[in-house]
């Protein structure tokens, strides 16, 4: 039956930041399908100019509350690259340990609080408190651990303060690490429960596939999050982080006016599913087993499965976190006093944020004052792919009617776990 729909979702709920969905169809003919981003501008790249290299992490962290650790790490790596600073193996390990805390915190927040209501057919997590108290309590325990882990290593929950160019201003003690290790071991049963719950609801995820280019850090034989080069499912060639602009190819879309990205195709996707598709063989044992339980296989092109890949990565974060605690404890914690003499230079830094690959670039003068910046955010890289998914999905689901089409489009946006405040750190977009 030819369908007419008029979907106009103003400020989609249960995502970070502001996005709109517009679909218009008359008698089965699709007139308009758009993913719009009307977030307020913040102009970070302009604001950091003139600030000391010692202030950059503090500012960059404020691009995003949920990914403040990875924005901090990308900024610090870029600064260190610009100034030729080498860090100790201890610093490297503690940073990766901190990065995992954000993966656990962010993924559990997204899957447990933002996506679960869709799978259970309720408008928010609030009704689940009484209908599914055990599930909610499990999610709370996992999320709390992610946060307290972040606080222990980063000095605070959200906007870490311990990370500095050259090393750490505050290090965990060996007792801290032993305590953390115990808590990480202790959360494994909850993660298994979460995986079982998600597996039991996986049938609620739409069966939609669209062949997609996925981009993530690669660094065999590890599941790359912090070190590596830029990889793609479309090529075996990898690109050094310092050339990230040649991968993201930012451009202004005449349709959305938000800067989009493309490499080998019209768009690409980043995030947990992209990382899984490029690095699945390097997952830790329990994470690999969790992927099996959840039916997630390398080469998956169903964007709704990104939330499932996040569950796998939550397990990976805990398992690798335990390993890092062991390595740090075996080596023993050495005090650090990072002292950096500024010098002129330019450098790029890259890490995998929970939502995908994240790039920062800064240039500094001889006094260490920032002269220019360029920041490329995962959600910005996903906007174009969300649009192309919309265009493929709408014709398939239109016969199911307005309400169902709208529900599936909202779920699709949420699956990408967009962080729109991040992605529009400098864009000001208005629509008719």
């Amino acid at each position, binding site marked *: 039956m030819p369908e007419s729909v008029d979907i106009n979702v103003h*400020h989609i*709920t*249960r*995502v*970070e*930041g502001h996005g709109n969905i517009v679909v218009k169809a008359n008698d089965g003919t699709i007139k308009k399908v758009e993913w719009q981003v009307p977030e*307020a*501008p*913040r*102009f970070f*790249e*302009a*604001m*950091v*100019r*003139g*600030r000391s290299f010692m*202030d950059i992490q*503090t*500012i960059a962290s*404020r*691009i*995003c*509350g*949920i990914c*403040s650790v990875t924005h901090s790490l990308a900024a610090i790596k870029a600064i260190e690259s610009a100034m030729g600073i080498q860090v100790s193996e201890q610093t490297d390990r503690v940073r990766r340990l901190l990065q995992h805390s954000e993966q656990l915190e962010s993924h559990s*927040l997204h899957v447990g*609080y*933002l996506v679960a*209501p869709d799978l259970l057919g309720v*408008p*928010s*997590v*609030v009704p689940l*408190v009484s209908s599914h108290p055990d599930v909610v309590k499990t999610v*709370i325990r996992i*999320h*709390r651990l992610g*946060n307290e882990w972040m606080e222990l290593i*980063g*000095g*605070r*929950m*959200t*906007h*870490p*303060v*311990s990370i*500095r160019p050259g090393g*750490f*201003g*505050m290090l965990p003690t060996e007792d801290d690490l032993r305590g953390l290790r115990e808590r990480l071991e202790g959360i494994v049963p909850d993660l298994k429960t979460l995986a079982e719950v998600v597996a039991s609801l996986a049938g609620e995820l739409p069966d939609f596939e669209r062949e997609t280019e996925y981009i993530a850090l690669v660094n065999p034989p590890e599941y790359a999050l912090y070190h590596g080069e830029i990889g793609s499912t479309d090529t075996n060639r990898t690109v050094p982080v310092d050339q990230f602009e040649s991968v993201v190819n930012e451009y*202004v879309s005449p349709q959305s*006016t938000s800067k989009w990205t493309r490499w080998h195709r019209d768009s690409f996707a980043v995030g947990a599913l992209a990382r899984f598709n490029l690095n699945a063989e390097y997952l830790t044992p329990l994470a690999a087993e969790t992927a099996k339980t959840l039916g997630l296989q390398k080469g998956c092109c169903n964007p709704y499965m990104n939330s499932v890949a996040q569950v796998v990565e939550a397990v990976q974060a805990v398992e690798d976190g335990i390993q890092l605690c062991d390595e740090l404890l075996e080596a023993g914690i050495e005090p650090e006093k990072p002292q950096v003499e500024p010098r002129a230079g330019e450098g790029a830094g890259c890490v995998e944020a929970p939502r995908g690959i994240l790039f920062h670039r800064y240039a500094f003068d001889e006094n260490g004052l920032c002269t220019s910046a360029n920041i490329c955010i995962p959600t910005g890289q996903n906007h174009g792919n969300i649009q192309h998914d919309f265009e493929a999905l709408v014709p398939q689901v239109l016969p199911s009617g307005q309400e169902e089409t709208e529900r599936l489009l909202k779920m699709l946006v949420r699956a990408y776990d967009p962080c729109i*405040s*991040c992605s529009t750190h*400098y864009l*000001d*977009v*208005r629509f008719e």
Partner: protein
Amino acid sequence: MSKPKVAIFDFACCEGCQLQIVNLEEELLDLISVVQPVTWREAMSEKDDDYDIALIEGSITRPEDEERLRAIRDRADILVALGACATIGGVNKLKNNFELDEVKRCVYGDAADMPHLDTAMTKGADEVVEVDCYVHGCPMDKKEFTHIVKSLALGKEPVIPDYPVCVECKQRGTICRYEYGEICLGVVTRAGCNAPCPSGGLWCFGCRGYAPEPNVQAARDVMEEYDLTVEDLQSKLKLFNSKQEPTNA
């Protein structure tokens, strides 16, 4: 007595303060036993324009956002600013240190003249509407947030410290950042965060704004003692406490 209805709104920010509400975990369940959240876009699909308390996160950076904030003010009995972006403008005010047209050109290059790329000076919430209560910090402290919301729900005056962060470092036994040769804004910044930054390996960068009556002479004495200048301190203060007017426009 029915529970006060609470609505949460975000403007230009990182949404890290809303995240602190989520980070309350089980305590959030206690909080919703005294107030009823009716609108919270980041966490709920429900929406209701009938509310008693409006919680405002983020800075105001566009004329249309001023209109939106005024409409919220009209509907709410109590309006609360959450976090540095709303209370003092925060890092978003760094933009105000540049000439606006130049900021746009820096980011957009040749496209800067397109009419839809307009932006305005960054404002804190109280530069647009009357604010009844402030939850300071970047991000705000979740314990202080709970205290303030519970106080408002019970019709009590919340207790917000008026002394500087230095007091809390002394209480914690944290080594003074000046001993490391670093400029710390704890001397003039309002306490209430329990000084996590100086103990976490960094200096205080002033995210809670000035203490109500900052001891400027004491700050001068500290600068002198450590061979630093007031200009050094002022430069650091720009990070979260830039003024409304641009300096070189």
